[in-house]
């Protein structure tokens, strides 16, 4: 028999069996002995597995703990060094975690805060606890709010608070995590900026008003200067006077365009330029441009041609003033910088839809051209390609800048192709709504009759408080044999209109006692007025964008800009007279 297992050995010893029994039991004991050894063997095997698994587990756990320690060390370092407060609130609403930024924000130690209710440390301006930090009912997860808080040290701060519920797998809210960011500096800067902007807006408004007033004030005497120079030129001046008068006329007109440009530029820069939406005739605009520049071109011995494609519609909806300004600027530039050849204005349809049409305008000259590197510069305000250009050709240098910016406001872009000594091509496209009604404003640029007919059939009331202006108008009317009376303000005009029947009233708008608008309305509204239906034309130096709408509202029939071109004035008077005779 194999050596007895220690347990069996011990068990046998306890019983002290006699030899006979031992022999008898030998086969059984052999089996039991074998079984004990087998149990031991199995046990050792399992023990070994347990040992190995256990030591593996122990090592893995140790590594894991080290990694957790490393990571939590890093996180602690990060959380400890950022400026924002990171917090955790437990289900009962007590602080359970705060990073050191909390101490910086509130002046309260983190240890003194933890375990206390979340609303204990932050109060609103009245000292009520702020309870919106956590929101049990928030189903959308994240909650964010900017609030003004009082810290325990009594400092008012703007805080940006974000919090989010932490949910267990079963959806139950276990607590909240979030951040508190001190945005006091940002908020104060923001408020300061708003204040600064308000101040700037007030300052800008004052500037706009100043410029608008100034331009009106300048235009009024200019009106007289231009008018007088026209008058003198009509009175058969002597040869040597003619040169001086031409210079006077040219300079005053130039001054006027300068004032207009600066005013426009300011309007664009301050964003106060409003586009007008009115029916207009493109043909009328083009005719006007043609009439302005044909003579100019002739004087320079160059050609000026307008090529309008036959499919371009005539009646459109848009800002006629601005469109003619753009075209005038570009054509004027072309003629100004061209010594040989000529300038062509080409108008074509780029895209035609049922309601809209996209029209392309191209102004091409054979002038001095623009060097490549100056191409972007010429659109800058007060810039021309070369400094000597200003001396040679004059101008404010605002024309192109205004043109470009106007087009941008209208949703278009001014394109330029140019080659030095060959010429320049400026082009742009504009989308217009098609219109079917005739424009309200009489065409100021309509060609005046070649010969001056006497206006002796007309009786005209001129209303203007400026004596110089009335003098100029007076001179022209006298020249044209028209019968006229003068009223120095709206109230006087109203009185006169109630007793005398006139064929036309020329009405200044800004006057003391009663302005032109009120006067016009009263004349139209007064039952006993003899002039209920008399044509009333505004005669004004005002440049407001909505002046056309206003004069329509007050029952006036048209607008003549001051300073006026005598030819234009005549053509309107002539037309009124003709209409009267037809009636």
């Amino acid at each position, binding site marked *: 028999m194999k050596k007895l297992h220690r347990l069996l050995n*011990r068990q046998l010893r306890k019983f002290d069996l006699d030899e006979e029994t031992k022999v008898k039991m030998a086969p059984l004991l052999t089996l039991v002995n074998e079984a004990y050894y087998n149990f031991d063997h199995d046990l050792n095997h399992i023990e070994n597995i347990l040992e190995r698994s*256990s030591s593996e587990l122990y090592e893995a756990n140790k590594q894991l703990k080290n990694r957790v320690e490393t990571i939590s060390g890093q996180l602690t370092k990060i959380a400890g060094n950022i400026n924002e407060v990171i917090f955790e609130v437990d289900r009962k609403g007590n602080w359970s975690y705060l990073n050191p930024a909390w101490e910086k924000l509130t002046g309260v130690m983190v240890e003194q805060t933890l375990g206390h209710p979340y609303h204990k440390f932050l109060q609103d301006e009245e000292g009520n606890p702020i309870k919106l930090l956590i929101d049990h009912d928030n189903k959308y997860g994240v909650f964010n709010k900017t609030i003004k808080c009082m810290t325990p040290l009594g400092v008012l701060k703007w805080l940006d608070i974000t919090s989010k519920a932490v949910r267990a797998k079963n959806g139950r809210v276990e607590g909240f995590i979030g951040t508190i960011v001190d945005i006091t500096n940002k908020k104060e800067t923001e408020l300061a900026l708003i204040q600064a902007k308000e101040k700037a807006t007030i300052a800008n408004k004052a500037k706009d008003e100043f410029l608008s007033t100034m331009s009106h004030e300048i235009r009024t005497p200019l009106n007289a200067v231009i008018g007088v120079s026209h008058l003198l030129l009509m009175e058969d001046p002597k040869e040597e006077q003619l040169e001086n008068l031409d210079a006077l006329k040219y300079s005053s007109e130039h001054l006027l365009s300068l004032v207009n440009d600066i005013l426009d530029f300011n309007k664009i820069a301050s964003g106060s330029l409003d586009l007008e939406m009115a029916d207009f005739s493109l043909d009328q605009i083009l005719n006007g441009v043609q009439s302005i520049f044909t003579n100019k071109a002739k004087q320079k011995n160059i050609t000026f041609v307008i090529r309008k494609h036959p499919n371009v519609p005539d009646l459109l909806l848009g800002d006629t003033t601005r469109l003619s300004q753009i075209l005038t600027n570009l054509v004027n530039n072309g003629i100004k910088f061209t010594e040989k050849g000529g300038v062509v204005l080409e108008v074509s349809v780029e895209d035609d839809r049922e309601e809209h049409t996209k029209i392309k305008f191209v102004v091409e000259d054979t002038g001095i051209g623009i060097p490549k590197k100056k191409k972007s510069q010429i659109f800058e305000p007060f810039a021309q390609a070369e400094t000597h250009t200003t001396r040679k050709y004059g101008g404010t240098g605002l024309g192109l800048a205004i043109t470009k910016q106007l087009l941008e406001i209208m949703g278009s872009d001014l394109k330029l192709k140019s080659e030095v000594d060959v010429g320049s091509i400026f082009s742009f496209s504009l989308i217009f709504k098609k219109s079917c009604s005739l424009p309200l404003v009489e065409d100021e640029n309509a060609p005046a009759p070649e010969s001056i007919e006497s206006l002796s059939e007309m009786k005209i009331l001129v209303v203007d408080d400026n004596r110089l202006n009335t003098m100029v108008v007076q001179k022209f009317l006298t020249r044209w044999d028209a019968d006229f009376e003068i009223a120095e303000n709206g109230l006087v005009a109203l009185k006169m209109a109630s007793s005398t029947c006139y064929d036309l009233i020329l009405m200044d708008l800004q006057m003391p006692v009663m302005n032109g608008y009120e006067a016009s309305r009263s004349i139209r509204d007064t039952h006993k007025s003899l002039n209920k239906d008399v044509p009333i034309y505004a005669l004004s130096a005002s440049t407001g964008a909505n002046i056309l709408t206003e004069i329509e509202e007050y029952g006036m029939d048209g607008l003549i800009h001051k300073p006026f071109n005598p030819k234009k004035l005549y053509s309107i008077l002539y037309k009124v007279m003709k209409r009267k005779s037809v009636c």
Partner: protein
Amino acid sequence: MQISQHKLTQPSDSRDLAFDFEPSVIFLFASPKFPEIAALVASLREKYENTLLFGCSTAGEIIGNEVADASVILTAVTFDKTRLKLVQVDLTEHCEHCADAGSKISLQLASEDLRHIFVLSDGLHVNGAELVKGLRSQVSPNVSITGGLAADGEDFQNTFVIHNEEVSSKRIVALGFYGADLKVGYGSKGGWDSFGIERTVTKSSNNVLYELDGQPALELYKSFLGDQAKNLPGSGLMFPLSMRDENNQIPVVRTILGINEEDNSLTFAGNIPQGAYVRLMKANIDRIIDGAEQSALITKGDSDHHHELAFLISCVGRRLVMKQLVEEEVEAVNDVLGPGVYTTGFYSYGEIAPFDKFSPCTLHNQTMTITTFAE
């Protein structure tokens, strides 16, 4: 030194007792199942009125190579040169005062020629670790301290100590040994292995453990015990804890003394400080026996003197593991100590001794703790 040993299996056995010397002390290791133990002690006291009676209840009594049950092992000893002093201190309800009890004992025993304190304590109402702290506080580090906690089989119901004619619970008894001629040997070793991951004590109070890694400690125990869970706290002996904190570089072993289902806590024989690291332990019979042998080798050390009397205090947990093989560890110890030594002792609820002669005395669990005397 003269020694006489007897195993009493029934009260009447004491009538025939006779020694051929006048014993200075009789050591009594008594099973709580032995009938009328108080009467036995009283009759011994009557018979040997100049002899000190010193002992406690057990979970198994050791005599020679034998582990007995339901008996009283009696060892009568007369020292030739060594003086003895027997003292006792009552335990109050609260374990916090265990250190006070310990220091009271050492104060009563303190003397310049005090060599050794042998201490036996109630096994259920004591915080052994605190007791040891108190014992050590009042005596020179040269005074060695060993002993154990009385046991009540696997029942954890009632333990007692014997002080002359008195047999009582909630008491600590100690025997002081005086004189330069006494040679004391001691050693303590378990042989248990840690397994699984190291867990952190996250909630505890003195010797009551509530949470490990934030989880209720009792639940963890139950999950490892499986079917045996219903036999707690007895079956908890199968899974002692190996504990280390910054002060205990060598991990100490802690065994369960009781459980509390209400607050999910476990009560241990010694403190389980919060923040300490613990691992569960398991036993392997061979390694436990090896542990006992190691303990004997430590006790023997490099001394070549003859050991006359040996006290083996071994943990009840070891007995539960070894079952019928329990005597193997006693034999292993006796084999090392050599022939001619009188061996006695008991299976305990806790052992008190230094690990070896270089370390301070501490409370142990699950060890074979040996103390030897010679003159």
